[in-house]
């Protein structure tokens, strides 16, 4: 698009589940300082694509590149090492743990197997401040937070290990209007921090509010790329396949 090497690019990525073609030859580029929205109807392959980037699924064929270098992302922790962090659809947090524990889950700071709580708390507090998230305390169990606050924690946790690419799968699906607005602000903050963001959503209003570019998937294939200024109807037509 603008001559720079994309942070992340997918080249002709396909994924089959038995005879089902979830993704067929999909291309996608994400640059730094950019929010790319991925839209499409149910079953269009959005979540499959997110899971491939996040290392939960491996592609059946095709190539992933980070900074122009071919990579294989074989597991969520491999994705973390490559600088890819993800928030999954169904509020992927542990409600019995507190904010700090969730932010650092799976990537705890430790010395000889024992947790360095103080440092983790401090970083968590800084992260939440950067994202302008309001939470009573970094020691509050998630079960005591609202759905919006939990999603904010889930987004904050992507920033651990200073990733460069963040994948958000339906981050606003379970939220009220006010909470959605808050989460969209957090997403803009991620872009301001210089990250490349893949935002998967059903909601075209959300998408048009924050995305720089909108990519449409239909039946597992690329079906159009739009600037954020494109009209609602244009995008909708690409999603539904209307002529």
């Amino acid at each position: 698009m603008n001559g720079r090497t994309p942070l992340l690019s997918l080249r002709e990525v396909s994924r089959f589940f038995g005879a089902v073609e979830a993704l067929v030859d999909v291309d996608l580029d994400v640059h730094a300082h950019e929010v790319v929205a991925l839209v499409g109807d149910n079953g269009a392959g959005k979540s499959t694509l997110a899971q491939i980037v996040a290392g939960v699924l491996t592609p059946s064929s095709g190539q992933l590149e980070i900074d122009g270098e071919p990579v294989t992302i074989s597991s969520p922790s491999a994705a973390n090492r490559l600088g890819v962090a993800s928030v999954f659809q169904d509020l992927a947090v542990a409600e019995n743990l507190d904010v700090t524990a969730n932010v650092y889950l799976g990537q705890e700071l430790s010395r000889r197997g024992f947790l360095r709580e103080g440092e983790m708390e401090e970083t968590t507090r800084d992260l939440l401040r950067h994202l302008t998230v309001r939470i009573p305390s970094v020691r509050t169990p998630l079960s005591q937070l609202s759905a919006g606050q939990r999603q904010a924690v889930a987004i904050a946790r992507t920033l651990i290990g200073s990733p460069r690419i963040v994948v958000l799968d339906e981050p606003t699906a379970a939220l009220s209007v006010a909470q959605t607005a808050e989460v969209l602000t957090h997403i803009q903050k991620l872009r301001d921090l210089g990250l490349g963001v893949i935002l998967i959503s059903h909601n075209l209003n959300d998408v048009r509010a924050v995305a720089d570019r909108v990519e449409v998937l239909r039946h597992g294939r690329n079906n159009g790329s739009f600037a954020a200024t494109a009209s609602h109807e244009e995008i909708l037509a690409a999603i539904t396949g209307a002529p």
Partner: protein
Amino acid sequence: MNAIASARDLITRNLRQSGILVAFVAIVAVFALLNPMFLSATNLTNIVLQYTYILILAIGMVMIIVAGQIDLSVGSVVALTGAVSAVVVVKNGMPWWAGVLAALVVGLLVGAWQGFWVAYVGIPGFIVTLAGMLLFRGLTYVVLDNISISPFGKPYYDIANGFLNGLFGGYGYDVFTLVIFAIGVVGYAVAQWRGRQSKISYHQSVESMPLFVAKLVVVAAVVMWFAYKLATYRGLPVVLIILAVLTIGYTLVTQKSVFGRHVYAVGGNRHAAELSGVKVRKVNFWIFVNMGLLAAVAGVVYSSRMNAAQPGAGNMFELDAIAACFIGGASTSGGVGRVGGAIIGGLIMAVISNGMQLMGVSTSIQPIVKGLVLLLAVAFDIYNRRRAAALR
């Protein structure tokens, strides 16, 4: 005003934990009033000697329950490990430590076996350990050839029945016991103080100074009173040292280590844990290996206590251990529970059993009471959770 507010905060914040502690104190008070013998040095020592193996099992069980699993086989594993130890020590005339070692190895193998089926084959722990309950009971019969083996002899017998006494001398009481407990109290105070300081340095709210000091003084007074009781009778039971080391060690592992954090994460939201890079299978495998090891420790302690290995040993121990965890605030849906809670839960069961025996309550009534206590404890837990959900 401020002190009252912070006291109330302290209580509501930890209602689940402190509620159990209050219940424990109340039960002890009731039995003490009903029978003056209850708080005697002899009886307190007896409680320690009689129920340690359940508490050891409860430590491992609470980790399993927090991870969202259950282990029904521990009673049979207690029997099997005791049996192996007896064959090594009594039949083959090997030294006591060889028996202990053999029991621990068998425990680890049993744990690895069950961990494999749960973690890598994906069979629920309930089924795997139900099978294990039958399997290891049967193996116990095979190992013992259907008969009891006894006696173990002196050094082995002292694991569960021995005392450290007279090391520093004393006048009608054992100074060594008091010194050990005093060191424990000071250590506790220092740990609490450092925890409080680090909380302050990270700008967290802490209880007010007078309340903090009052808490330490009460704990110290109760502990030293208990120590004095032990010291005036036979001194420091060896099993109490084993139990204390295990309790402190496993509290640290569950609350302060990465592994412990992952156990809670797996029990709280297995899917989220997996996506976050927690190695769920590894966690599941190792909690069962650990349970096998602790069941072996309990097996050694129990066989030593009985001075024999019996085919029917450890029957129903799993239920006592599981009950201890749930009374101690563990949640049936996983993710919640503490080693300290399980210990207190186990002590509640122990005190109720012992108190009723002391009062001559008929053996038919005792299980009825214990059953009701378990039911009420879990009802209390569910009531608390509903209230917390409603507050949100």
